[in-house]
């Protein structure tokens, strides 16, 4: 408790040292100051891309070490067979698939929120969408690894890829797993393109302000000769908008298809109509909480207090709270629909979740997913960074548990009582792989932050510009009124 206060005090101190003048901060919860000079924006953001400090390398090393654990596990599993991960019949899937869904879910807020907010002209997205989209891309790349790791014959993975082949062999397009692969591929490539297209003007800035080294070449190539001409901007706007339009239904489809992996099956506890909605809500939920986590980290590490402002955080937090309540509601819907379905097998799975061997995890999920977010309803916590940091991590823990609670209980307690198995716990290989995925993600994300601007400079400029215009307009209007 005391420690909390101390930390809190330290944070308050940081806030006090913030470059935003106190009166402006207090005055009107402005999500951005109009007075920020554009040059300063460039300077601040580019500064975040400078040669990293020692701590960066230390963390990167640990992330790499964690990833290496996973590589080791995979080599071991590849050599000896899937059995080493302690799965069995009926526990065919285990943590790989649950963690796969977790990462897929994580990917959802970035691109989806960015696109929705873009369409809705909610310009508070501007300072945060870049890293959120990076989050999407990298969590998809992490999720993709689990699909591979999960396969019993990794070396034949291409059998489930549709490619024209001499023997006329095609994969089975009826399989939700194939839809999954297809949707993830589409989503990943679209997200990467969306991220990239949105970054071109910033890449041009990087090009213009870096004068040597491989980076200069990299940005020169990547910025495609962007000069910010009216023609480029005009087409850019349309393109960005169009892709945003594509991405919204796509993102929804991706997680509904992941839900279809379960809902299209015939198993009790999976064959639930509300699953797609439940999955999408869960995905947005975990994505939002991941955004909060990264928001806080980036804000702190890169001193982005001026861009990633508390009002923006507050908005994100409120959005998260809303989604948390939707998710909670959908949980209840799942229960209710099963309860009134007279399907004893599905009921048994639910009962099993609540009072069976998985109960601690299930209740953990309820606690993290439905109880913890209640703190977000309080205004004082909505901008309390230490609290938010802990809460966002708990939310994600809850969401990871949710995915596990979707996958495992049905396997352990399916239709066929003879094969019920309540004792099969994931082995160290599975845990190692889950652990490694966080290392892998951290590696990718940290690399991204140092190579690419994690705050969109041009969009922040736009935001500042629009605020200025707005201010001017309202001043004129005021004067006119006088």
């Amino acid at each position: 408790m005391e420690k909390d206060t101390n930390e809190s005090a330290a944070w308050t101190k940081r806030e006090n040292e913030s470059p935003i003048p106190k009166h402006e901060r207090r005055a009107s919860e402005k999500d951005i100051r109009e007075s920020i000079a554009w040059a300063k924006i460039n300077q601040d953001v580019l500064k975040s891309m400078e040669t990293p400090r020692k701590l960066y390398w230390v963390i990167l090393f640990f992330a790499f070490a964690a990833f290496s654990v996973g590589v080791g596990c995979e080599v071991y599993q590849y050599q000896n067979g899937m059995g080493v991960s302690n799965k069995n019949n009926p526990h065919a899937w285990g943590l790989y698939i649950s963690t796969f869904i977790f990462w897929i879910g994580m990917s959802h807020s970035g691109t989806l929120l960015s696109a929705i907010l873009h369409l809705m002209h909610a310009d508070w997205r501007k300072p945060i969408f870049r890293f959120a989209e990076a989050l999407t891309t990298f969590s998809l790349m992490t999720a993709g690894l689990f699909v591979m790791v999960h396969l019993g014959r990794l070396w034949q993975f291409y059998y489930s890829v549709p490619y024209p082949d001499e023997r006329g062999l095609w994969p089975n397009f009826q399989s939700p797993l194939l839809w999954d692969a297809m949707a993830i591929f589409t989503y990943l490539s679209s997200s990467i393109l969306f991220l990239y297209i949105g970054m071109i003007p910033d890449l041009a800035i990087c090009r213009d302000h870096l004068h040597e080294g491989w980076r200069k070449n990299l940005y020169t190539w990547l910025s495609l000769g962007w000069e910010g001409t009216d023609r480029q901007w005009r087409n850019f706007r349309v393109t960005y908008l169009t892709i945003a339009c594509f991405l919204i239904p796509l993102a929804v489809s991706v997680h509904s298809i992941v839900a279809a992996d379960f809902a299209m099956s015939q198993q009790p506890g999976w064959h639930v109509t509300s699953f797609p909605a439940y999955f999408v809500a869960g995905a947005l939920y975990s994505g939002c909480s991941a955004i909060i986590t990264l928001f806080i980290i980036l804000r702190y590490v890169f001193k982005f207090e001026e861009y990633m402002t508390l009002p923006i955080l507050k908005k994100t937090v409120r959005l998260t709270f809303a989604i948390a309540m939707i998710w909670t509601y959908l949980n209840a819907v799942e229960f209710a629909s099963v309860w009134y379905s007279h399907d004893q097998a599905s009921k048994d799975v639910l009962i099993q979740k609540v009072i069976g061997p998985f109960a601690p995890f299930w209740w953990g999920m309820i606690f993290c997913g439905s109880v913890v977010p209640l703190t977000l309803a309080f205004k004082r916590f909505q901008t309390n960074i230490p609290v938010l940091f802990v809460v966002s991590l708990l939310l994600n823990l809850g969401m990871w548990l949710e995915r596990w609670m979707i996958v495992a209980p049905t396997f352990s307690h399916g239709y066929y009582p003879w094969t019920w198995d309540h004792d099969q716990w994931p082995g160290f290989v599975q845990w190692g792989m889950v652990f490694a995925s966080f290392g892998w993600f951290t590696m990718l994300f940290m690399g991204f932050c140092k190579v690419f601007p994690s705050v969109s400079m041009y969009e922040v400029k736009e935001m500042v510009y629009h605020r200025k215009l707005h201010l001017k307009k309202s001043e004129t209007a005021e004067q006119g009124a006088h």
Partner: protein
Amino acid sequence: MSQRHLLALFNNFEDAEAAIYELRAADIKGFKFDDLTLKSPIEHHEVESVLGQRSANVQWFSLGGSLVGGLLGFFLISGSQANFYAQMKGGKPIVPFPPNFVLTFEMCVLGGVFITILGFLICAGLPAKRSPLYNAKVSEDQIGVLVKADESAMPKIKGVFLNHDVLEIQEEVSK
């Protein structure tokens, strides 16, 4: 008569806008208004009122792309089902609609996104070589107006720019 480029940098958009208005109104011989390019660190869509509605056709690429993607998807999938394994699976029809529609949708989006990007590159003329006059300030906080005009028109254009608080004028070295 040889043409030259000239880049004027402004501190803010209003100045640049005013300068462009004047240029348009001035009707300078040897300078076509279409040869004027605005370079800005952010998008100023207000500029359209000055420059006029210049076309942006990316959305047609999107439409075409998603149609082609969707059709390709559906026929690839249904065709492969009909040809390779005209073989039953799980009692479902050999060409089952729900899964094929799901995949058609994905292919539709995939085609749409890819072709949109292609369209963007074509419409925006990217990747492009750098234009003859460029100033890194344009990607920072200044507005640039690049004009291409006959040598003879240059003084007049410069004059217009100078009227509007231009910060700096860069001229192409004559060939």
